[in-house]
């Protein structure tokens, strides 16, 4: 994990940029996660101070939302949809295949730090279930074979 001192100026810049925005905590957290890939636990104190909140309040917000993470993600984040439409098209098989292939469960990162695996509840791609994303790219009608191809392609672009 990176040293927070090197990340701190980035966090302070983001805090400063959102200073006058009403309801700015989520935009700030997004800003930090978009830039650093996660929200360093050490940043909580700086966020709390800037927003006149307690550390507990900031922590409470971060932990409430599935999307925010406080540990660095792998190089690529894979999100597999677990919702009904994907289940109706055997999404469970895709989920199992992904876990087995990557050797990790949801909310974990592979030991080579290449992939993080997350569950997601609907990507709005329900006309082409089962669906998943790799980073910001959506993929539909994903079979286990297609999953393997996508993973291989990701590894190829190290």
């Amino acid at each position, binding site marked *: 994990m990176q040293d927070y001192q090197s990340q701190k100026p980035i966090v302070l810049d983001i805090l400063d940029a959102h200073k006058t925005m*009403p*309801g*700015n*905590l*989520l*935009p700030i*957290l*997004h800003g930090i996660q978009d830039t650093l890939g996660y929200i360093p636990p050490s940043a909580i104190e700086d966020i709390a101070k800037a*927003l006149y909140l307690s550390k507990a309040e900031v922590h*409470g*917000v971060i932990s*409430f*939302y*599935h*999307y*925010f993470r406080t540990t660095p993600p792998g190089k690529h984040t894979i999100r597999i*949809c677990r*919702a*009904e*439409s*994907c*289940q*109706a*098209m055997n999404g469970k098989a895709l989920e199992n295949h992904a876990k087995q292939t990557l050797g990790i469960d949801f909310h974990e990162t592979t030991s080579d730090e290449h992939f993080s695996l997350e569950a*997601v*509840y*609907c*990507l*709005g*791609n*329900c*006309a*082409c*279930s089962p*669906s998943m*994303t790799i980073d*910001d*790219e*959506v*993929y*539909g*009608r994903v079979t286990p074979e297609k999953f393997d191809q996508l993973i291989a392609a990701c590894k190829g672009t190290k």
Partner: protein
Amino acid sequence: MVRLFISRDSTALSLGADKVANALKQQANSKGLNIEIVRNGSRGLFWLEPLVEVETDQGRMAYGPVQAEDIASLLDSGLLEGKQHPLYLGDIEEHPFFKNQNRLTFARVGLTDPVDIKDYISHDGYRGLKNALNLQPADIVKHVTDSGLRGRGGAAFPTGIKWNTVLNAPADQKYIVCNADEGDSGTFSDRMIMEGDPFVLVEGMTIAGLAVGATQGYIYLRIEYPHAKIALNQAIESAYQNGYLGENIQGSGKTFHLEVRSGAGAYVCGEETSLLESLEGKRGLVRYKPPLPAIVGLFGKPTIVNNVISLASVPIILDKGGDYYRDYGMGRSRGTLPLQLAGNIKNAGLFEVAFGMTLRELLYEYGGGSASGRPIRAVQVGGPLGAYMPENQFDTPLDYEAFAAIGAVLGHGGMVVHDDTSNLANMARYAMEFCVEESCGKCTPCRIGSIRGVEVIDHIIDNVDKTKNTELLRDLCDTMLCGSLCAMGGMTPYPVLSALNHFPEDFGLEAAKA
């Protein structure tokens, strides 16, 4: 110059639309062909995506589903002149799936360049706003009330009544909030509007602002929709540049500002008060009602919270009048509903139609039956909190009241189709599991009830005290139904009880004992 259309819709992208567009561009360039590729919204016939349309003297001709490998043969056989090819579909607007719709809200989706304001205006865009600028606020609200429009997010509350409450609430600041946290599985109509015709939402929100005297709007967009965010921000920027947002809109002296805010993966934030908490930068805990958000909403001010489709239906109502919209539909369900066919269905896609068509007609006539070719066993209508409907309920007309009468919900119009390989006891268990995962935790029936629900269903499936536990499950569902603060806990029993009532055999129960 030949104009071609390839969708930028997420689902088209998920099937390779970008690769198709790149291949077409490269190969046309190397052949010295002069083409322009417009990245439009999707027509909504997703089994034909990626769809390529070409503008010819005879109209727009479509080809699909196209993969990048097909481009060479398409160009060779005369794609640019709209000539025959095995993937040739002709005019997509003549396709029965498209032709038999009533596209009011989705009139431009798939037709225009979503982020080109000139294209929007030349296809009847901003006519509603133009009318609204010449009306008194109460008259704008009256058009919406007269249209019979009800909240398309699922609760079906009359939109005009909500607007009127905000109009009559005195305050120095009011807000328009668009609920774009479309988290229900099997739904994607909000996404398609935002990606395929974002200006219609921007226009609808601007009209709402004029109607109630709000000068600031927020679109609370779920984080799972990155492409919608891009399209919305492009449209908003263009609207500002062209004097359709900001101060002195079209020289009227009226002000309306609009901003997109991202959610962070919490399903419960689709509940309006939880959404407001989230917008304020807090945990998405549901608020007690009353006070209603229309009186005490965002930052304590009177606020309209409307779903994307509700707001996107406002421009056509203000353009053509409330009566025009009201003339579609049946009973107290007026206008059209964009239905979404999803899950195990052959022709998956978006079908906007006046209320009143039966579920069976939609599923078989247009949906073409299941994707697997096996019998359709159950359809979950209205998202994760909607009931599972068995085959003997398929003749129910798509109408809020007709659905309510049989203990089902039409909701946001999403339908997830299951064939006969789905186990409904597992789906009931999943409904409780989802509630465990997504409960905001504020009220006990939802927070604890869902955990107990998973346990009890496990006991029933594992054959432990079956009769006793079935009785316990029903009792638990009753507590959740009556005692939860919002629809999360209050409606999780819908899928559970409908599965139990209509598919007792999946729980190892005989019909009479369930």
